């Protein structure tokens, strides 16, 4: 791309470095009230009485609402199993029972405490395996009556089951020379954006505007419309600057409750989460997993069969997790050539905060287990773990777990480059080692739209439904339009963040912004380009086919003096027909697969434009304390064609450090009452600047065929960087200590305990 060479400064950058940019919690309005929630007092209980009278009587309280004050609507993207407020039962500690709007936070808090709720406590289910045992207490007794997508396979506490079957795994396993079976457990963890959730709602007549820290404004709009029974046209979601998301702010959260409060109070209402609430009620956290993996290999190192049994934690309600079992099953099969595969994955209801997409959902945990398992198998074979992967990794023409045939991929190249970048095999001190892990991740093809208009002075504006969450994906859209229009990216303004302005987009989720909205912006830019050329042909009295558009002007090929600039064309257009482009490119087709033997098919039976990643990590392990320091990371990604190197590198740097956090320290612990024991940053420890190592980044350029991927053959970039990091670190730890850590996060205590066995 012509503009890729010079540093591209993001348009929202100056607003952010000066502190002038507004985030949702920074908004203030005349008469604005503050919202507080009353959460469940139990992780599992029947509600026998709710009395809000004392709270209502408190001076300064304008609204107290419960399930009685909103339509009785169940919602959920795959399974409609929840309400805005608990009605008969509470199923996790962060469930909402009531909400208050009051003059100040202090009054609202006092009012919340004055709400009387009586409960009849029920047996708590917090362990995923116990949840699926026969006779386990049902979280949702009425599960069978819930509305749900027909492809979701459900039974009692198993909210979504999915299987992958390829070949004859029993026969394959019987033919293997060596069979290795292992069990791994991953604890739940969190997205932890530095900005906690915030929502402001204000009504104008029967229409509501909601400012929300959401990654997905259109999905939030549809959630509000569904639960408050409003037409979507009556709900406008505006997203001020968004202080990170990582999936934690995907889907529909508290927009409807705050809007309901504002309607009752007849005042604007603001909700700002504390960090504690961000842990207890994020409504989207990374799910825990239990994984049993079994692999059969021949002496030559080829894998003949893989079996897997996975149980994922859904939490108390279904956010978007019902498609996780199928995704996790693909992850457990891995980017390897295996003729015989059976993976059986379930999603168990438990009395914990709901799971949902957090950066590459299911993948870092499943990859961590699988890649440790791969090293274990290599160990049993007496084979170098890199050599073992080299033998089995998928290449062009190979088939995936559902017989998807891979084309234009560079998985093996990522492995070679990563081991080269880290210096695999070099002499190291005896408390250091290099671990390697390979991962993969799909791109998501989803409908998306954009407009491009040329302003009267020849500058331009992109109007998009895409949402920026910090990655810079929206900020980079002008690069794509500028190239098509022969303009500078700096001459574009961007309008996004507003559901009443841009066309639909599924938001800052699924690494999909450039992939889908990038194509839409290019289509819109091409639409305007055609209009510019038509107009120029008229103005220059030239044949349209003889024209070329570059460097801000249209000229006749071969006679550069015969030209008209875009500003001149824009001025002319503003005297007659405006230059307005629209774009909504078709969604790429899913690659063919044979999923005949698979159940619970929710769109993950093949991977569109899959990205492949190898991380090689050099770690130092303090054998006496179990403290692990990551010294150096080589991260090599094949993401098709990279369009914006600064942005792409930023995603890798951030994702790797998130992966280090997941590997070493990030996990929520639950008490016997199923309450989180560490819902604060002192004991849920993120990586600091001093923990973060140098990261060597490599890109394997392997563009998809036109129509099979994103713009110019690109693939999703944002999520993959955290996928293989925990597995690579695990393998380095095992190399140093000789002991495998079977639970994630691999805290110092767990590393130490593994060494005591």
């Amino acid at each position, binding site marked *: 791309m012509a503009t890729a060479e010079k540093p591209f400064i993001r348009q929202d950058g100056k607003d952010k470095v000066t502190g002038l940019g507004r985030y949702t919690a920074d908004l203030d309005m005349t008469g604005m009230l503050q919202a507080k929630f009353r959460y469940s007092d139990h992780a599992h209980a029947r509600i026998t009485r709710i009395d809000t009278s004392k709270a209502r009587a408190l001076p300064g309280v304008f609204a107290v609402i419960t399930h009685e004050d909103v339509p009785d609507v169940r919602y959920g993207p795959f399974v409609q199993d929840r309400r805005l407020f608990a009605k008969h039962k509470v199923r996790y500690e962060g469930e909402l029972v009531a909400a208050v709007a009051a003059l100040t936070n202090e009054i609202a808090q006092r009012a919340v405490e004055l709400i009387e709720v009586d409960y009849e406590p029920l047996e708590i289910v917090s362990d995923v395996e116990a949840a699926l045992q026969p006779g386990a207490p049902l979280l949702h007794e009425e599960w069978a009556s819930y509305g749900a997508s027909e492809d979701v396979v459900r039974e009692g506490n198993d909210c979504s089951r999915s299987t992958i079957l390829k070949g004859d795994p029993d026969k394959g396993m019987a033919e293997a020379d060596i069979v290795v079976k292992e069990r791994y457990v991953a604890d739940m963890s969190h997205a932890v954006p530095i900005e906690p959730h915030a929502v402001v709602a204000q009504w104008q007549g029967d229409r509501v505007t909601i400012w929300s820290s959401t990654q997905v404004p259109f999905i939030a709009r549809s959630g509000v419309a569904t639960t408050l029974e409003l037409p979507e046209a009556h709900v406008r979601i505006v997203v001020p600057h968004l202080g990170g998301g990582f999936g934690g702010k995907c889907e529909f959260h508290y927009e409807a409750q705050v809007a309901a409060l504002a309607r009752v109070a007849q005042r604007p209402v603001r909700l700002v989460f504390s960090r504690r609430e961000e842990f207890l009620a994020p409504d989207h956290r990374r799910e825990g997993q239990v994984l049993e993996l079994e692999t059969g290999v021949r002496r030559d190192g080829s894998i003949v069969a893989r079996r897997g049994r996975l149980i994922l934690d859904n939490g108390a309600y279904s956010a978007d997790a019902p498609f996780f079992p199928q995704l996790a099953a693909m992850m457990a099969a891995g980017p390897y050539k295996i003729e015989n595969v059976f993976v059986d994955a379930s999603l168990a209801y438990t009395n914990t905060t709901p799971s949902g997409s957090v950066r590459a959902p299911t993948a870092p945990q499943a990859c961590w287990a699988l890649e440790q398992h791969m090293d274990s198998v290599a160990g049993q074979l007496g084979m170098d773990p890199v050599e073992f992967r080299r033998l089995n990794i998928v290449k062009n023409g190979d088939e995936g777990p559902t017989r998807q045939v891979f084309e234009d991929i560079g998985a093996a190249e990522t492995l070679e480059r990563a081991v080269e970048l880290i210096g695999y095999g070099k002499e190291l001190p005896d408390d250091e080692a290099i671990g390697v892990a390979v991962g993969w991740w799909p791109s998501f093809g989803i409908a998306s739209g954009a407009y491009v208009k040329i302003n009267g002075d020849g500058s331009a504006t992109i109007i998009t439904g895409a949402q920026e969450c910090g990655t810079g994906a929206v900020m980079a859209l002008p690069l794509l339009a500028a190239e098509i229009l022969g303009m500078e990216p700096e001459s574009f303004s961007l309008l996004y963040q507003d559901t009443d302005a841009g066309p639909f987009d599924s938001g800052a989720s699924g690494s999909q912004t450039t992939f889908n909205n990038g194509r839409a912006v290019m289509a819109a830019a091409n639409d305007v380009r055609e209009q510019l050329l038509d107009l120029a042909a008229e103005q220059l009295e030239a044949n349209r086919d003889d024209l070329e558009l570059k460097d801000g002007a249209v000229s006749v090929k071969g006679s550069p003096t015969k030209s008209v600039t875009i500003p001149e064309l824009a001025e002319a257009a503003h005297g007659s027909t405006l230059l307005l482009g629209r774009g909504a490119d078709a969604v790429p087709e899913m690659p063919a697969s044979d999923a005949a033997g698979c159940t619970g098919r929710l769109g993950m039976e093949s991977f569109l434009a899959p990205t492949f990643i190898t991380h090689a990590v050099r770690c130092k392990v303090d054998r006496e304390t179990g403290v692990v320091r990551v010294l150096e990371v080589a991260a090599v990604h094949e993401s098709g064609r990279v369009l914006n190197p600064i942005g792409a590198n930023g995603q890798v740097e951030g994702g790797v450090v998130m992966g280090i956090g997941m590997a070493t320290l990030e996990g929520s612990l639950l008490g016997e009452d199923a309450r989180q024991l560490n819902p604060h940053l002192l004991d849920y420890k993120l990586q*600091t600047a001093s923990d973060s190592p140098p990261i060597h980044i490599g890109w394997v350029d392997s563009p998809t065929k036109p129509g099979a991927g994103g713009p110019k053959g690109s693939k999703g970039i944002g999520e993959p960087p955290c996928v293989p990091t925990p597995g690579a670190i695990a393998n380095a730890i095992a190399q140093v200590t000789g002991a495998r850590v079977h639970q994630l996060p691999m805290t110092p205590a767990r590393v130490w*305990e593994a060494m005591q066995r």
Partner: protein
Amino acid sequence: MSAQSYTAATSVDEALEAMATGARPIAGGTDLVVGARGGKAPLPDALVAIHRVSELRGIREQEGGLVLGALATHADIVASSSACELFTALADASAIVGSHATRTAGTIGGNVMNASPAMETGGPLICFDAVATLRSASGTRRVALTDLFTGPGRTVAEPGELLTELAIPTPKDGTGSCYARLEYRRQMEIAIVGATAVVTLDGGTVRDARIAITALAPTIHRVAEAEQALNGSDASDAAVHAAADAAAGASRPISDVRGSAQYRRAMAAVLTRRAISTAITRARGGRFPIPASPALHGAVNGGAA
């Protein structure tokens, strides 16, 4: 947060006057305000801010030792060459409290009177025989740090008493010291296990050893059995190991989100051993970076364990 009244004292007498009527002192706020925000304890009803009381500031040398004003910050201690040379374990401790912002705002007086069993500076102050001066409207008394702490968050100080300074006698020649903490991250940690060693060598013999353990019991305390194992010894590895094991044996750790009792007890031995070894290295005149803890975990740029 519930505070109702506020005065800003400009002298110790003004502060004591406010405290006599029930006000609680506040300096950097890094314990009190954080605790109130986190829901640990609401702010006291009446506050007297002491940050302007200049007589409480600074670190000064006086005959026979060093005096830390109650308002001396952790950053002040780390910047003090006397503290680093003579009371190295204290500098080790102050240098790893929270972040840089915590160290510039957090004072030694607040740190001590907050009486957390996980406070970094407690072990070093106890081992160095620090003496706290407690003043109230009715008089002044001096309390050895060993006698100050009575439980988590509790001290022998009466409600009207203000810690004005800490006096620490200069250690004998041949003394080296170290505070070592278990660190999951390289910064922003809280002590899960900590150990202090102050070792005085006479030729090759340990003449005096002080060992204290942190976050391993309701209060930070010295461990006599560990000290006995070292005293009179030749500071050999065997003696150091014996002392470290004795420290672990004397610990009464709890199991919580930060670690199991079993792990903490095992780490008590490891950290105590590392603290003693480093103290001995320093007593022998060897250089070891301040703070010691990061280097003792095999830090990226640090020395050997």
